[in-house]
């Protein structure tokens, strides 16, 4: 379990050899290849795409188009114009809730989410339901942490308009059966919207085979720059959606009293696009493809298994969620009565970076019956020594707080 991509490839990690970065579920560190691609775009090809009639602008347009194509290919989406660039998962999900949602969800309709959604896939639907007078229903989790399919099946009906659910939980690491859930949703004529923020970076994703209508993801969680994400969608649904934002590029004709819209993907991308960060994300996809997402998955599984076992073996440590083989590279845990924030502070003094809190999943925390957990998450640059440091830090925290009460 040495790192899958050497730390030296990540300037921040290379500069801080002692740093143990275990918060990749929040955001990942950036490889040199991505930073180079980003900078090279600005140094060689920068212009406003789509709008210019000169070679430099044509080059910017081409870089943007190629980035879209590269990323679509990475995610197994044949129709690249159905990959809509957004700022991230949050904007992608809000786009669907606002554009598709306002056009299709009315009073008495039902929206179904799970009790383990990130706020980004929970609050937009909750608020849409409140605005529309629709019923907002929360499907609970099975004992293994995955969405309870029996309950879901029982919940779905002719009034169900949307089933919004996560591919991978950012708290528990559980992996949901996406295809099965999409089929259940489609069985009652509902839209299947998948939050892929934690799926896209960690698992092979073949959108055209997944069966969902939408899959949302963030570039910054998969080695890409901040400020860019993608909404993968089915053309049939995208074509029928009204625009989300309005402005340049997304229009066809602007009359004084009405407007008509451009074709996909432009209809859903108003304003000057973020070409630089899109190019950076394409470089990240290139890198991950070169390694192979199967190997990324295997690497994380090995790390998560070790972390799970070694943490569970410490008296007083409670690990949340399923067995290691059924989860992605996330481990949430608590240590006796050591509060997760105190634990994070103690680990931080040892340069071990973990996250502590509700992880933007307050509904799930209520269901777990805790106010906060500590969370360690892994990625391609982590290796077994990072787990050593984590485990040692947890032991130190226990000592500091006194073994007795643990």
């Amino acid at each position, binding site marked *: 379990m040495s790192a899958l991509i050497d730390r030296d490839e990540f300037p921040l990690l290379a500069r801080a050899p002692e740093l143990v970065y275990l918060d990749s579920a929040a955001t990942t560190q950036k490889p040199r290849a991505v930073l180079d691609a980003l900078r090279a775009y600005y140094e060689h090809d920068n212009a406003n795409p789509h709008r210019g009639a000169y070679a430099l602008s044509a080059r910017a347009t081409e870089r943007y188009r190629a980035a879209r194509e590269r990323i679509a290919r990475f995610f197994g989406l044949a129709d690249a114009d159905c990959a809509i660039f957004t700022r991230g998962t949050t904007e992608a999900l809000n786009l669907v809730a606002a554009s598709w949602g306002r056009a299709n969800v009315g009073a008495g309709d039902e929206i179904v989410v799970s009790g383990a959604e990130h706020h980004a896939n929970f609050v937009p639907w909750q608020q849409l339901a409140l605005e529309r007078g629709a019923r907002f229903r929360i499907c609970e989790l099975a004992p293994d942490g995955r969405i309870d399919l029996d309950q879901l099946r029982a919940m779905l009906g002719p009034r169900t308009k949307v089933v919004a659910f996560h591919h991978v939980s950012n708290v528990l690491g559980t992996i949901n059966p996406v295809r099965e859930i999409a089929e259940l949703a489609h069985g009652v004529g509902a839209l299947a919207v998948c939050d892929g923020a934690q799926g896209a970076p960690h698992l092979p994703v073949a959108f055209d085979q997944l069966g969902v209508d939408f899959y949302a993801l963030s570039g910054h969680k998969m080695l890409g720059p901040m400020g860019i994400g993608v909404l993968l969608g089915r053309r049939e649904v995208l074509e029928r959606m009204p625009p989300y934002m309005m402005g340049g590029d997304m229009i066809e004709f602007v009359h004084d009293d009405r407007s008509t819209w451009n074709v996909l993907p432009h209809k859903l991308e108003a304003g000057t696009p973020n070409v630089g960060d899109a190019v950076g994300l394409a470089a990240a996809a290139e890198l991950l493809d070169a390694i192979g997402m199967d190997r990324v998955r295997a690497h994380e599984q090995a790390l998560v298994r070790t972390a799970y076992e*070694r943490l569970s073996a410490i008296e007083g440590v409670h690990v949340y969620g399923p067995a290691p083989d059924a989860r992605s590279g996330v481990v949430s845990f608590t240590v006796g*009565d*050591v*509060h*997760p*924030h*105190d634990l994070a*502070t*103690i680990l931080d*003094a*040892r340069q071990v970076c973990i996250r*502590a*809190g*509700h992880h933007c999943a307050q509904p799930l*925390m209520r269901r777990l019956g805790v*106010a*906060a957990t500590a969370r360690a998450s892994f990625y391609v640059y982590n290796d077994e020594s990072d787990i*050593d440091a984590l*485990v*040692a*830090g*947890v*032991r*130190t*925290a*226990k*000592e*500091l*707080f*006194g073994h007795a*009460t643990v």
Partner: protein
Amino acid sequence: MPPSDPGGGDAPAPHLSALYQEVILDHYRRPRNRGTLEHPDVAVAKKNPLCGDEIHLHLAFDGDRVREVRFTGQGCAISQASASMMTQALAGKTAAEIGAVARRFSEMVAGDPAAARDAALGELRALAGVAKIPVRHPCALLAWNALAEALSTRG
């Protein structure tokens, strides 16, 4: 356990031992003045949504002086110990006296070394170590923000 054992806990950084000292852990685990008042003159609640820490504060006055104070809450050792110690520091003080202590306390959290030595803060000085950890300042100050709101509510 020998320090070379990779599975063992190494010695913690010195500023952490200073922070998580006996007195703080003691207040965390056995909070003083924990509970509620039947007839509080003021009751306020403060939460930090970022970390889930929360403090509910009940105060009863005798004229301008705090007669009784109780708190409930949940959260990290720092927020709960700070609340517990604060309630001890309030008893019998006037609003003006409390204001002075609160100011001194926030100076200490902001890193003022004179405040950290000021006898007026009593046991609260145990929290001086938090000055070095900016992300934890809100934890140390949560109860004090509730107190400020309580005093201003009362007018």
